[in-house]
C-alpha cells in the first residue's frame, strides 16, 4: 500500500508562480485523471514532483509513503518508487535504449540484472507494446516518432515497476492502435500490484481504456473541482470555460 500525498504545493519558474496550492492524494489501487486547459500547470506539477531543476518549490509538501520527496534528488525519488512518463521524452544522443534501460533497472532494483534475463525481459516488454526489437540498439528517443517515444515511456514504466506513476499526456499524438497498446500497458501496470496512477490528459478517449476512479479539474495552477469518471464526460461536452473564469477570479 503506497500513498503519494501532495499538500498545498506552490511552484515557481523563475519569478513566475505557476502552481498555487495543489492538494492531491493518490493511493495504490487508485487511478486519478487530471484534466485542464493548456498552460494550467499540469506538466509543472508532474515535473515538480519528479524534481526537475527548472521548477522551484516555494512551499508545500510532497510525501511518498510518509517520506519527503522534496528532500530527495531526482534519482532518489525514482528509486523511492515514483515514475514520470514525460509529455516530451528527451532524446539522449549516443546512449542506446538497451544500455539506458539496463542502467535504470540496475539503479532501481539495486543490482544489475543478468544479461540473459535482461534480454528476455526487454524482449517480452517490447513485444507487449509492439515495439520493434531493433529499437534496443537505437539511441534513446533519438529520431523516435511521437508515438514511439510514448510507447518507450510505457516500456520503462513496466520494467521499472514504480509504486506511483505520473503519466503526462501519454495519450497525446497516438493513433487508435497505439492508444490501445499503450492503454493496455498502463492497465497491465495497474494490475501488477499495489500501484497508483496519476494520468494527465486532454481527452476522454484514453479514459475509456484506463478507467479513472477520480477526475480532477486543473486550472490556474490548482485543482478547482473533483469528481468521479462522469466529470470527464461533462468536461468533454462543456469545456473548461466555467473553471477558467473561476480560476481567474480566484
Amino acid at each position, binding site marked *: 500500500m503506497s500513498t503519494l500525498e501532495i499538500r498545498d504545493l506552490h511552484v515557481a519558474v523563475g519569478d513566475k508562480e505557476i502552481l498555487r496550492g495543489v492538494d492531491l492524494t493518490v493511493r495504490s489501487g487508485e487511478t486519478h485523471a487530471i484534466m485542464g486547459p493548456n498552460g494550467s500547470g499540469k506538466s509543472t506539477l508532474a515535473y515538480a514532483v*519528479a*524534481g*526537475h*531543476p*527548472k521548477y522551484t518549490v516555494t512551499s508545500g509538501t510532497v510525501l511518498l509513503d510518509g517520506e519527503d520527496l522534496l528532500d530527495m*534528488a*531526482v*534519482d532518489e*525519488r*525514482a*528509486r523511492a518508487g515514483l515514475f*514520470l512518463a*514525460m509529455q516530451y*521524452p*528527451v532524446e*539522449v*544522443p*549516443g*546512449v542506446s535504449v538497451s*544500455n*539506458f534501460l539496463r*542502467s*535504470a533497472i540496475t*539503479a*532501481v532494483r539495486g543490482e544489475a540484472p543478468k544479461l540473459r534475463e535482461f534480454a528476455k525481459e526487454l524482449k517480452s516488454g517490447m513485444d507487449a507494446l509492439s515495439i520493434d526489437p531493433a529499437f534496443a540498439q537505437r*539511441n*534513446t528517443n533519438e529520431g523516435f516518432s511521437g508515438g514511439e517515444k510514448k510507447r518507450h515511456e510505457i516500456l*520503462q514504466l513496466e520494467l*521499472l515497476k514504480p509504486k506511483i506513476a505520473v503519466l503526462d499526456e501519454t495519450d497525446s499524438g497516438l493513433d487508435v492502435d497505439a492508444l490501445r497498446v499503450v492503454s493496455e500497458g498502463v492497465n497491465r501496470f495497474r494490475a501488477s500490484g499495489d500501484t497508483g496512477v496519476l494520468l494527465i490528459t486532454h481527452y476522454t478517449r484514453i479514459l475509456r481504456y484506463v478507467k479513472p476512479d477520480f477526475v480532477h479539474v486543473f486550472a490556474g495552477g490548482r485543482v478547482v473541482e473533483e469528481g468521479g469518471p462522469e466529470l470527464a464526460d461533462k468536461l468533454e461536452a462543456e469545456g473548461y470555460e466555467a473553471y477558467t473564469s473561476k480560476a481567474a477570479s480566484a
Partner: protein
Amino acid sequence: MGLETKPLSTLHEKASYDVADFPVPTGREEEWRFTPLARLKGLHDGTAAVTGGVVVDVEAAPEVRVETVARDDARLGRTYTPADRVSAQAYSSFEKATVVTVPRMTAASRPTVITLRGSGAGAAAYGHILVSVEPMAEAVLVLDHRGSAVYADNVEFDVAEGATLKVVSLQDWDDDAVHVSHHHARLGKDATFRSFVVTLGGDLVRLSPSVSYTAPGGDADLTGLYFVDAGQHLEHRLLVDHSVPNCRSNVTYKGALQGDAAHAVWIGDVIIRAEAEGTDTYELNRNLILTDGARADSVPNLEILTGEVAGAGHASASGRLDDEHIFYLQARGIPFDEARRLVIHGFFAQLLEKIQLPELRERVLSAVEAELAR
C-alpha cells in the same frame, strides 16, 4: 569559445626546412596566439637543451619493412615542408628517423605499433617518422606516446595510389610532458587515409594533422577525441588542402574538458582551391565543458575558391552537459554520476566505434573512464 573567420589563402604559404626562416614566435601570430609559449620549454625559441630521450620502439607487421635511418636519407621530407618554427626546429634537429615501408600490393596482416616512450621532461628531444604505403598496399599503424618528454617531431604519411593507411595516434603522456607534432598525409590517386587522434595526457600538446592530395580520388577521414583536465592545454590544428579535383575529406573532433584552466584549442582549416572541383568536405568540432574554469577555443575556417564543390560545410559547438539529458536519466533512478558518465560516453560513442582495433578501443574507453572518475 568564439567562432571566427580569417582569410586562409595567405596562411600556410610559408614553408621551409630552415629554422632561421621563421622568427621566434611572440604569441601575437595567428598560428601561435592560443598556445602558452612559456610552457613550450624552449621548443619554439631554440633554448631547449637537447639531451632528452624518447625511445622509439617498433613492433611491425611481418610484411612491413622498418628502418632507422640518418638525417640525410633522401626519402625524408619529401611529402611535407615544415610550416612553422617548431616543425622546422624538429626537422633540423632530429638525429635518427624511423622509416616504415609497406611494400606494393601488400596488405599488412596486423597493426604496426610504434611506441614513443619519453624518459623525462627535463630536456628536449626531436624526432622524425616516415610511413610510406606503396601503391595498392594496406596497413594499420599505431603511434603510442607514453611517459614524459619535451618532444617535437614531424610524421609523414605517404599514401600512394590506391593504398590505404589507417593511423591511430594516442597521446597518453604523463602530466608534465610537452609535445609539439606535425602529422602530414600526402594522398595519391584513389588513396584512403584514416586518422584517429586521441589526446589525453601531457601538460601541453599541440598536434597539427594536415592532408594534401596529389591526384583525384583521395579520401581522408580525420577523427579526434580529447579529454582535457585541470591545467592542461591540448591543441589540435587541422589543415586539409584540396588542390586537386574530386577528393574527399571529413574532420570530426570532439573533446570534453573539466577542471580549472583546462584549455582546448581546435583549429580546422580547409582550403578548396580553384582547381579542386568536385571536392566533398565536412568538418566538425564539438566541446563538452564539464566544469567552470575550463575553456574551449574552436575556429573552423573553410575557404572555397571554386564554384564547383560536391559538398562543403563546417560546424562548431561548445556547450555544457545538457540538464535535460541528465534529468531524464536521473528520473529513471540512475544516480547523477552514472547519468553524467552515460551522457559523456554517448557524446564520444560514435567516435569510439570508428576505432576498429578492439584492444585499442578498450584502452581508449578505459582511459576516458579513468578521466571521468577523477
